[in-house]
């Protein structure tokens, strides 16, 4: 298969511009990036038909071997319409978030940096909290080590936890 360099370049520009735009805070900008990437994808699929020919519509003077590959065209056609649908959906999302979140002059910048940092910290705390479980195990194990200086005579403080856990685990009879 051979390629048209021009189309490849245009496709890559659409992708590049689209992805760069999608990395902005404003949801409208994200959506514009989405449109650009959508067009880029369609062009990518179109590239796959190779050398273009006549329109794939049969007639008396059209030979089956001279037409463009109709398969990518069928793919793209539905993709175009779906693009419209998704764009509308994203717009509806955007509007609703702006309206319901009462963002007003802030526009469509629903994504608040401070909030995100807070969320992230919360998640991080959750991750760190598993360390507490591990520490509890280690404490329990350390508590069982005999310390000759403390001696076996004194009432052992460390055994409290062990005893408590044993009591809870054990079956008590009246």
């Amino acid at each position, binding site marked *: *298969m051979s*390629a*048209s*360099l021009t*189309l490849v*370049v*245009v*496709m890559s*520009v*659409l992708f*590049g*511009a*689209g*992805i760069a735009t999608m*990395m*902005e*805070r404003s949801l*409208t900008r994200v959506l*514009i990036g989405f*449109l650009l990437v959508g067009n*880029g994808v*369609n062009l990518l699929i*179109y*590239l796959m038909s190779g050398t273009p020919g006549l329109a794939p519509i049969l007639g008396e003077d059209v030979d089956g071997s001279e*037409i463009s590959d109709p398969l990518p*065209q069928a793919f*793209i056609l539905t993709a175009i*319409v*779906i*693009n419209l649908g998704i764009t*509308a959906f994203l717009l*509806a999302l955007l*509007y*609703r978030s*702006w309206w319901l979140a*009462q963002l007003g*002059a*802030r526009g469509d910048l629903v*994504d608040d*940096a401070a909030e*995100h940092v807070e969320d*992230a910290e919360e998640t991080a705390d959750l991750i*760190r909290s*598993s360390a507490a*479980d591990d*520490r*509890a*195990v280690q404490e*329990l*194990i350390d508590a*069982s*080590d*005999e310390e000759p*200086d403390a001696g076996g005579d004194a009432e*052992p403080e*460390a*055994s409290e936890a062990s*005893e408590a856990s*044993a009591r809870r*685990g054990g079956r008590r009879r009246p």
Partner: protein
Amino acid sequence: MIASLAAFAGVALVTPFLARWLGRRVFPLIALMPAAAFVLLLTWLPGVLAGNPVVEVVPWIPQLGVAISFRIDALALLLALIVTGIGALVLLYCTQYFGDDEPGLGRFAALLLAFAGVMLGLVTADDVFLLFTFWEATSVLSYLLIGHYTERKESRGAALQALTVTTFGGLTMLVGLVVLVVAGGTTSLSELVAEPVGGTAGAVGIGLVLVGAISKSALVPFHFWLPAAMAAPTPVSAYLHAAAMVKAGVYLVARLAPGYADVSVWHPLVVVIGGVTMIVGGWRALRQTDLKLLLAYGTVSQLGFLVLVTGFGTRDAALAGVALLLAHALFKATLFLVVGIVDHATGTRDVRRLSAVGRRMPVIATIAFIAAASMAGVPPLIGFVAKEAVFTAFLDATAAGEAWAWAALVAAILGSVLTVAYTARFLWGAFFTKPGAGPTTLQPTGTLIGIAPGTLAVASLAFAFALPLVEPLLAASADELPGSREYHLALWHGLEPALALSALVFGLGALLVWRRAPVARLQAAMPHTIDSGRGYLAIVGALDRLAAGLTTFIQARGVPGYVAVIATVFITGLGVAALRNSTWPDTVRPWDLPAQPIVAALIATAAIAAAIVRQRMTAVLLAGTTGYGLVLLFGMSGAPDLALTQALVETLTVVVFVLVVRRLPRQVAVRRQAVRAPFRIAIGVLSGAVMAVIGLVALGARVQPTIAEGLPALAVEAHGRNIVNVMLVDIRAWDTLGEISVLVAVATGVASLIFITGRTGVAPRLDAPSTRRERFLPLPEQADTMRGARASLADTEHEADAAGEAAATRQTWLLAGRTISPRNRSILVEVLVRLLFHPAIVVSVFLLFVGHNAPGGGFAGGLVAGLALVARYLAGGRYELGEAAPVDAGRLLGIGLLLAAGTATLPLFLGRTVFQSSWLEADVPVLGTISIGTSTLFDIGVYLVVVGLVLDILRSLGAEIDRQREDADEHGLPDAIAPADDALHPDTPHDERRAVASSGTAPADGEARA
């Protein structure tokens, strides 16, 4: 075997329900399951001893040679008997251990039973991947069992440690197994042992598998998870330590030793790690004050011993190893169960608080003494027999000059000395009277609870005297290793060196007990150099901190951050893969047509500009320009259908965008971006470059001729000349059906997001129905009402009056033209729309029907009709939309989907296949010869869905947003949310109205409509 395992699974599944009904009495019932398996296994014993293993094979993934295969030889049978026998006794013990009110009792019972079943599968599986599956299943089940007390921190932590460590080992083992299987060409464990894999592959593979075994059997440096696992209920500990889980590693070592003991990595791993573990475990056991922990470290020590002996690689050592395995299973289960009983009776496991217990619980104490004596290797018990055999085997090996024999012998002696010492500490701690401590208060325990440990203790004793009965099974598994078969297990071999060693061990052990105080001081003074538990904590802590840091780093940037991460992964992953590819296209043309570069430059410029400009509307229009550029590209090079559809969609997209964006502040608020501009640009450029490479590679990778050559014939067969349309409605109709389903979902989604209260019904209509003619004429008597309704549309009272006056008296071109403020009306637009609407609908229907043979079709037709509606709405406002399309959008979508799905299913009722087409041909004036077929009906369905989609979009993003805004203005609350227009729906409840904080701008209406 498969049937037994299925029975285990089945019983385990119903156990929770039984437990709800029976309470703790469920345990004796389910104990029957392993007991039955135990009996079944015993019936196989003669055959297995005769050298005929029981084999069962069911193909699983034949392409990979993976099978559900079981092979029960002597070793497997021994392990299986231990697993089921002790399993049954432990379950029986649970009856007395737990109360009916124990939380999660049913779950616990089911898990413990399943654990036994999985363990049984593990020791009998022959396929290595089946074995691995069971291996991992034991990890998961042990996690759930250790974490039984979900509310306790230490329980959760211990469970997670066990899971982490054993899963790490398991995955390492999987890699090793794959290496062995690929090099050996079989997945059968027995074949891999019979014909060992040699060379580097064998060494690497077996090394990795040993890491798995070492982690599972809690050997140094992975030993820390086992003491931690004593957070589990005692029956679990007993089973885990004695018969299940940790024995899996020992089993694997014993299984592999006949084939791989000569491999270079084997002895260093097995002897060093086994020996070190034995000593470290014993040393730490000697220091514990918690009886359960003491036993846990004792198990660690014994596991090291077991691996050292079973993996040593001579026949005698193997025989000693399996004897020790049996002995350990019996005494360790007994001791744990005894600790459970003592714990119950006294409420503590602390040796410093227990005093004078043995005197008052003589039966339990006796049981414990028998088991402990077996552990220490005191005659006449099975433990003594095994230890004698070990010493003899190692002594013989040193005499034979075997490498590693001395190291193994010294480790075994030192470990045994420590074992004697900690055994004494255990008995002293649990049962003896301590000076200075009063007798511990005892609560009565039932006698039944002693059955399980009692049975096991008796077995420890009985087996030592019934060696001729036991030995054949043990010897049969050991005989696979080289070496003379002269040595037999016996209580009395005469005055042999081994006996002297035993005496030495007892002597040194007694010394350790006698000089307890200096030993304890020495222990306390030892630094924690080989405490890998702390190392684990450090590693896990570091991982946690890394994860937390990474989370903060990525999450703090929100959506843009995520996109950046995704794009970066895409660039590095696919970019590298694409560059490493060598299939570039044969030829690269600069362009297909001379006009292409010009259009391309237009698209590229528009795309880059769209990414740069800050104004929303400009950016939207620029993005639209790229779309129109595509229209040109498609139109120039043989894709008229695409050009048509893209043009229509692009127009609609821009309109829809504008409809929403008119409500937002005009300028995109500029704040600090989450991803800074240089990064965004770099990631964008690189993504584009990667896509270019991928496009080229994809073109080059294509070697097969396109299937397009066959399509013309197919199209003719389907009575169509427009191949693209035929594909959409006939050849690939399934695909299209899916696609329009997406459209229906999207339309529904859009409406649901915008409408607060129910989305059904048509767009708002004028509330004065009259004859068609009348509605175009000025209606003086309605002027007042019109004035009222319009008040909201005008800025001031005065203007409203004037507008009402003008609207009411002027003749209109559109039905709802009078509802719009004159400021926003354009007579020119109204006239144009009035003139063009009906022709546009006709054209849309025309496109729909000619689509099969010429550019057009349901998508294009539907979009044209949709654009006609857009025009009506833009010119006349929301009431105009209601008048233009007085139908429920949902109904249109539904009918469309029904039609399309109907053409799919209807042929089924006629005895044909889904989507099989049939036709009716006719000559129609103007349209020419058209053939109406099921595919035409399908296309009509597509048409209706597209119209429905556009209508829903207009109703929601257009009309409803208008209404919400008018409502907000009318009530003096900027952006207030009111359920409905009072004038139109007076019965709507008011309490749903919700006032929200004020917002700034409200762009002029005209912006959207101009």
